[in-house]
């Protein structure tokens, strides 16, 4: 948690999209930005890139207000995936309330995924976060490509870890919101344990998640479809 000010009734949370270089972290955020309701969130801020590779981070902020008047700001970050930006990754990871690990489904990327995950474990330990405690979801992105790890294999490897594992194509726009939703749910549970969001602020999990993942026109399927295409 970045900040909690009881007097000012303000809470600032941080979620981090982690993963190997080019796995689609920035694309995930771009998609969330395109697909989700404008109201209740800010604009995507892309902080200095070089040839489209993230050097510092990207940021997409969300806002919501609990019935108690508690203002919650949720900042979603991506880290730079390239190996050499490890220090920046640590800086971004500090005080995170949840991590989405974006893996690249392509068979050729298996070892990069593995290395990046080890790197995440290492960095969590360094910034003093317990991997057992922190909300963590796994996304296998780029499912639209050929030569990808079969879903059964993924389920077999990751299933026992108990973490939610989601299939996605950030390019085509599916699986992205589901990943975010899963992460939001876990993050809520985690925070609720300590800050009693429901008990003290009247904010339950469903509302929290719904507010974060609302689409411009929930009822109109057409609109949703169209916005995926654009």
């Amino acid at each position: 948690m970045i900040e909690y000010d009881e007097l000012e009734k303000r809470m600032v949370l941080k979620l981090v999209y982690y993963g190997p270089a080019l796995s689609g972290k920035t694309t995930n955020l771009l998609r969330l930005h395109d697909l989700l309701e404008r109201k209740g969130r800010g604009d995507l801020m892309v902080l200095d890139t070089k040839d489209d590779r993230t050097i510092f981070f990207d940021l997409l902020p969300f806002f919501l207000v609990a019935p108690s008047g508690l203002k919650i700001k949720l900042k979603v970050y991506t880290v730079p995936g390239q190996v050499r930006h490890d220090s920046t990754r640590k800086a971004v990871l500090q005080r995170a309330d949840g991590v989405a690990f974006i893996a690249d489904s392509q068979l050729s990327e298996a070892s990069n995924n593995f290395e990046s995950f080890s790197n995440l474990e290492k960095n969590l330990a360094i910034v003093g976060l317990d991997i057992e405690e922190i909300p963590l979801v796994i996304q296998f992105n780029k499912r639209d490509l050929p030569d990808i790890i079969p879903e059964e294999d993924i389920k077999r490897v990751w299933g026992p870890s108990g973490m939610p594992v989601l299939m996605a194509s950030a390019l085509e726009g599916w699986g992205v919101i589901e990943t975010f939703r899963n992460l939001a749910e876990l993050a809520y549970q985690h925070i609720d344990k300590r800050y009693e969001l429901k008990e003290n602020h009247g904010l339950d999990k469903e509302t929290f998640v719904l507010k974060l993942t609302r689409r411009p026109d929930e009822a109109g399927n057409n609109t949703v479809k169209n916005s995926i295409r654009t």
Partner: protein
Amino acid sequence: MEKKQKRAENIEYIVGAEKKIQDIITDAEVMPILKGAVKAGASSAIIADAQNKNLWTCGSHPEGSFFTETLPVYLEGEAVGKLEVAGDSKDREYLRGLSGLLIDTIHMILHTNLKRMLTTETHTTVVNKSYEELLEINRKLSISESRYRELAENLEKKVQERTEELRRAHAGMLQQEKMAAIGQLAAGVAHEINNPLGFISSNINTFSKYVSRLKDMVAFYNASLGDSRVPESVRKSSRQKWDALKLDFISSDIEELIKQSLEGAERVKKIVSDLKGFSHIDEGTEAVIDINTEIDRTLNVLTHEIPEGTEIIKDYHPLPGFKCNPALLCQVFLNIILNAIQAKKLTLKLFISTGYNNSRIVIRFSDNGRGIPEEIRSRIFEPFYTTKDVGKGTGMGLTAAYETITGYGGTIEVESRTEEGATFTITLPVKRE
């Protein structure tokens, strides 16, 4: 300079830490803009924070009828304050346009400043942290890290193991299906052959009896010819006819022919029974067998596959009975012997020995063929590994052998020198019951 450095060291910088407007914009940046607005016709221009506290003010509130345009100031998408531009009511439209322009400018400055700050701050911390990190890395790699690494690694390994298991199981199934098919075929063939073979043998036996009666009769005639009452001419023509028909040779050959036919039939019977025995269609799945007998049986079945000039040297020792599925074990021998045949150079020399030692049966097949190059030696037991042409080898022979032998708690090993042949050694534990 000194001050700056100190500050950098003390920074407890967190990416994402909340910032206020006044942290991001300086007076020097805001005031000229607000002043510009007043110059352009507004009576006052104010920027206040979210708590309505004025941060920057320029000009003064107009008297009388006036109009105020209020616009939110956004930072990271959140309204953190407001801009208020006031002026004469009649200038309403103009003031609206002016404040729009103003707020865009402020947003632009906020945005670029924030970006610059975030990047430089990140950069500074990153540089400062590196040293501490180096110190901490060793210390802080916690237990949970290694545990998770292990988990991840093990899972990866497990997937591989399972896949391998599955492949083997599948391979074993194929082999068993093949055996079942052979067994059925053998049962059919054995049945078809056994019937005619039965009457062939019994007919030849009967035939042999008839022939001996005929021979008796001929002998009787021959003796009768010696009677003085038989005219010399008849005796002479009889002898001529006898010689012309080569009945001397025939009567001595007849018995040999019959003997050979009976032997032939007997061999066919043996082959059929070996075939049946080999596929063990007569027995249940488990039986106590003599391995020496089973190897011989397998060699018999393979008679036609064994090339001419092959030398098979057997060195069998008495073995205790071994409880197993005999069909599977014969399959092992068959696969190994076939491989030896297929690896032959000029002529095949196959040395087969058996022995019993320390509660283990040891069976060894040694050939003088091309041998197995070092590089592939570890792979030959893998399912579908073959060096033979597509369609020729399935690469399942040794896999099945490995499955069967290890299934009985035994071992199968290979030694080989390229161009000098290969030796497969099987050991099987004998359980006392």
